[in-house]
């Protein structure tokens, strides 16, 4: 169990939250134009990064609002929390760019 800082309520135990998996997957604008492989990519393929992973959480037992997190999946350390619709902080982007895991 780890602690997660809800951007609206503050630090709470993980068990108050539900996991929303990989963040920033945009729904295709013209699904009917996609090939089967592109559709499969959207529906099923996931980054599953070992290292810095951008993901969504929802504060189910609290404010029930969604937000994004950058978490190191190797250590479970949460590196950044940012709101829905926002991009991850620059230093996180740089870490991912470099493939840095901690």
């Amino acid at each position, binding site marked *: 169990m780890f602690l997660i800082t809800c951007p609206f309520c503050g630090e709470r*135990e993980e*068990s108050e939250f539900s996991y929303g998996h990989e963040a920033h997957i945009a729904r295709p604008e013209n699904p009917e134009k996609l090939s089967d492989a592109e*559709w*499969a990519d959207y*529906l099923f*393929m996931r980054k*599953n990064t070992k290292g810095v992973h951008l993901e969504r959480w929802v504060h189910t037992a609290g404010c029930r609002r969604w937000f994004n997190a950058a978490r190191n*999946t190797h250590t479970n350390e949460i590196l950044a929390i940012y709101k829905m619709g926002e991009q991850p902080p620059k230093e996180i982007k740089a870490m991912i760019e470099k493939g840095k895991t901690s």
Partner: protein
Amino acid sequence: MTKYSIFSLLRNAMGYHRDWQQAWRSPDPKPEYDVVIVGGGGHGLATAYYLAKEHGITNVAVLEKGWLGGGNTGRNTTIIRSNYLWDESAFLYEKSLKLYEGLSQDINYNIMLSQRGVLNLAHNLHDVRETQRRVNANRLNGIDGEYIGPEEIRKLVPIINLDPTIRYPVLGSSYQARGGTARHDAVAWGLARASDARGVDIIQNCEVTGFDIEKGQITGVQTNRGQIKAKKVGVVVAGHCTVMSDMAGFRMPIESHPLQAMVSDPVKPIIDVVVMSGAVHCYVSQSDKGELVLGAGIDAHTSYSQRGSLHIIEEQIAAVCELFPIFSRMRLMRQWGGIVDTCPDASPIISKTPVDGLYFNCGWGTGGFKATPGSGWVFAHTIARDEPHEINAPFSLDRFSTGHLIDEHGAAAVAH
């Protein structure tokens, strides 16, 4: 390889057990192999074994970054059964159960297969119907199984709580008498020894860090012990499969989650079947040493940390104590986690890949121990022939674009 038998045991007892031969060699990697298997868990070792035994391909190396069976093979709760719903799964898991039934003899190593029977409980009307449907499907596929009610459950498991007023009452169960458990380490060690005897090189502490790919064709692997050339490469690394597919440049529909298990203090024999419940996320069996072997569900988040969250164990222990009030004052002795490779349809991927000569076997998630020999058997065929066996053809990577998913959430998921 000297044969293990009652006579070798007696002979070695006379010598105070000082003269046992080592079970397998630890050679340095050769510069080139016909086939390199990445991952020395049960599935990788079984693949190597059947490559040698069934296909005569013995210039094979198994590369393991840690120690043999140190991944999920050595961390699982050893439940074996074949009562999956769909035909595709039934054939695959039943092939494996059949191979398990002859494995100790075949590899001359006691894997301690114990076909003590497996119950999958039903707690509500929907469970009951799903369970009956699954049992019927199993029987149509020639797989043993019956649906039993509370009275028969009581005969098999006298200590279970059948009070109809509990939160999740026990209404019925599937029962596969041929299901049971086996010793997980023995499966890995026995397969390693038998592969080694057929000429396979087993190389531990050898981590694959990259693939050599020329014009879409695999030519070898990069490791912490240098480059090793290979005509074909089979990747069987469970929770690390997307780390590998990232290196090879294609995507997989896999997510890696922690899955935990635990054992209690050892006690006298109290339960002689395996009892599982998908609905309340718990299952229990008793090891030969007397420990209760208990398992939980996965953590919701992805992780590679090999440790799960405490609240998962709390929920699971609460469920165990409601089903078996007699266990409520027992103490846990050990608890651990493994990283399981979950697939959207709760079925494995045993497949060719976009890279020629590179094959992946993964996605077994929470339930691949039961499939160890069968998985190795079909994967060896796939690698040797460069095409899947009819048993694993449906389990290809492209089912996610064709839409032919094999949805086993009912039979797999929490129930391993």
